[in-house]
C-alpha cells in the first residue's frame, strides 16, 4: 500500500486512498464500515477461504479428544484423552500406517530419482522427442485417477500379477513421477546457467560443477518434488484401492473401511499428528532457508 507514486498528490485528498485520488467522477463518500469492508474485501474473502480450508483440520483435532458413544465419531459427547494415550489401540490401524509409510518412502525415492533425471533432460536439452515426452508427463496429471487406477488394475489382473505391496508401489511411482518432474523442471529452468559457466571457468570439472553448483541450486525443487510425492503417495486412495490385494491395507484404505464399519477416535489422532508434523517440517524448512538466505 506504500508504493511510491510518481504523480503529484491532489489537493485535499488523504494519502491513504491513492487509487481514487484524482478519479474524474468521484462517488459520494460511503459510510465508514462499508468503506472498510470494501478496502479489505480481498483480505476478508481470502481469510474466509483459508477458514474453509482449515475448518476440517480443526474438527479433526477437536474430535480426537472425543469420547464417542457408538462406533462412529461424528457427534461430540465428552472430553477424553484416551485416544492420544493409546494411539495404536485399534486393531490393524498402526500396521496400515507403517505399510503406508514404507510405500510412501520407497515411492518417493523411486519417483524423485527417475523424475529428477527426466527433469534435467527436459530443462537442459533440446531433442526431437521432447514434445512427446512433455505430453507423456502431463497426461497422468490431467487424467482422472479412476481411469488410471482401473486401467493399471486391468493390466495387472490379466498379466496374473499378484496384487499387493509391489503393485501398489509400481502404481505410486507412476503417478508421482509427473509431479516430481514438473517441480524439478521448474526449478532447473529458473536457474542461472551463468553460475555453472562460472564454475567451469574456475576449472571445476563436470562432476565437481554438478555436485557443488548444479545440485545445490536444484535442491529446493528436488525437495519440493520429493515432499509432494511423499504426501501424494501416503494419501492416495483411489489408485491404491484398485491395485492393492486383500491383505495389503494402507492407511487411507483403513480409514475408508472404518468409515463404513465405525471410525475409531484414533483415526483423528493420527490425522492431527500428521498435520502437526507436516506443518512443523515445512516451517522448519522455511526458517532454515530464510536464515541461510540472510547469512549469505
Amino acid at each position, binding site marked *: 500500500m506504500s508504493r511510491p507514486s510518481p504523480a503529484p498528490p491532489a489537493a485535499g485528498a488523504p494519502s491513504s486512498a491513492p487509487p481514487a485520488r484524482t478519479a474524474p467522477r468521484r462517488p459520494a463518500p460511503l459510510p465508514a464500515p462499508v468503506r472498510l469492508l470494501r478496502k479489505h474485501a480481498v483480505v476478508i474473502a*481470502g481469510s474466509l477461504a483459508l477458514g474453509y480450508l482449515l475448518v*476440517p483440520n480443526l474438527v479433526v483435532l477437536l474430535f480426537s479428544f472425543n469420547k464417542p458413544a457408538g462406533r462412529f465419531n461424528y457427534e461430540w459427547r465428552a472430553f477424553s484423552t484416551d485416544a492420544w494415550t493409546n494411539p495404536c489401540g485399534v486393531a490393524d490401524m498402526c500396521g496400515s500406517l507403517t505399510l503406508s509409510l514404507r510405500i510412501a518412502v520407497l515411492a518417493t525415492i523411486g519417483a524423485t530419482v*527417475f523424475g529428477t533425471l*527426466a527433469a534435467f533432460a527436459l530443462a537442459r536439452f533440446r531433442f526431437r522427442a521432447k514434445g512427446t515426452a512433455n505430453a507423456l508427463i502431463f497426461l497422468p496429471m490431467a487424467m482422472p485417477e479412476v481411469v488410471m487406477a482401473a486401467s493399471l488394475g*486391468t493390466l495387472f489382473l490379466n498379466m496374473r500379477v499378484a496384487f499387493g505391496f509391489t503393485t501398489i508401489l509400481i502404481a505410486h511411482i507412476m503417478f508421482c513421477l509427473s509431479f516430481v518432474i514438473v517441480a524439478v523442471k521448474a526449478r532447473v529452468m529458473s536457474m542461472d546457467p551463468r553460475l555453472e559457466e562460472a564454475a567451469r571457468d574456475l576449472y571445476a570439472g563436470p562432476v565437481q560443477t*554438478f555436485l557443488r553448483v548444479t545440485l545445490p541450486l536444484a535442491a529446493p525443487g528436488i525437495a519440493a518434488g520429493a515432499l509432494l510425492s511423499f*504426501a501424494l503417495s501416503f494419501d492416495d486412495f483411489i489408485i491404491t484401492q484398485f491395485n492393492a490385494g486383500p491383505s495389503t491395507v494402507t492407511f487411507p484404505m483403513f480409514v475408508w473401511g472404518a468409515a463404513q464399519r465405525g471410525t475409531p477416535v484414533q483415526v483423528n489422532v493420527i490425522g492431527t499428528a500428521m498435520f502437526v508434523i*507436516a506443518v512443523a517440517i515445512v516451517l522448519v524448512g*522455511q526458517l532454515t532457508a530464510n536464515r541461510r538466505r540472510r547469512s549469505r
Partner: protein
Amino acid sequence: MTAVVTPGAPPTAPGGPAERPPRRRLTPYWLLLPAGLWLAVFFVAPLIYQASTSVQTGSLEEGYRVTWHFATYWDVLDKYGEHFLRSFGYAAAATVLCLLIGYPLAYMIAFRAGRWRNVLLVMVIAPFFTSFLIRTLAWKTILSDGGPVVGALEALHILDVTSWLGLTSDERVLATPLAVVCGLTYNFLPFMILPLYSSLERIEPSLHEAARDLYATPATTFRKVTFPLSLPGVVAGTLLTFIPASGDYINAQLLGSPNTQMVGNAIQKQFLNVLDYPTAAAMSFVLMALILIAVTLYMRRAGTEELV
C-alpha cells in the same frame, strides 16, 4: 553415473545446442529412459490394454476374448448416462466455486500477504498432509443434521432456495448434492489456488502502478490488467480441478447418498464388486473421451495453448 552428470556441464562454447558434440545428443534420452519406460509400461500400456478390454466379452472363469463387442459402450451410455451427467454437473459446480473461493485467497497471498506469504502458502498446502479421507469425514460432522451449518443455512432461508433448486432435501445437507459439491470444492481447492497464485505472483507490481497512474480504479485495474494476466492460472486451475473432480467417487460416497453417485462410483463398483471389467473399461473410456472433448472446447474458448 558419469553419463548422468554430463547435463550439469553444457558445452563451453557459447553456441547453441546445434554445436553440441554428437555424443551428447543421446544424453537426454538416457536421462529420460527410466521415467519414460515406467510411464510407457505402467501408464500408456494399461490404457491401450484397457481399450481392448472394453470390447471384450467373456467371464472371469472362462477368460476374456476380444470380440469387438461395441455394445458395451451403448449399454454404458444407456445405463449410466445419469451418472455421467451428475459427474460433470457436480465437477463444474465445484470448479466454479473453487474459482470464486480460491481467487481472493490467491490474490491475497500474492499481493497483500507481505512477509506472511510463505506462512499462508504453507496453510494452503498443509491440509494436503492430513489424510484427505479423514478431512472428508470431518465434513460429516460439520454438515450433520441439526449442526451449526444446517442451522445457519436454515435461519438464512438458504436451505429453502437450495431445496427448490434440488440441491438439498428434507431440511438436511448431508446425503444431498450440496454436500457432495461442498466436499469436492473443499478437496480440490488447493489445485485451484496454487496455479492461480503462481500466475498472479508473476505480475509486475509496476503494471498496477501504471494502471493507477492512468486513472484506473481498482476495479478497472483488476478487470483490464490483473485478471487477463492471471488467465493462464485460471485455465490451469479449472482443468486441475474439473478433471479429477469429475472422476472422483470419494466425496459422493462419504457425503452423498445413492442418489448422488458419480461415474467414479459406478466404475469402482463394476471393477471391485461386480468384477465386470469390460464395463468398467468402457466407462473409463467414455469418461476420458467426454473430458477430452470438454477440455478441447474449453481450451479453444480460453485460447491458452501452453499449459505447463
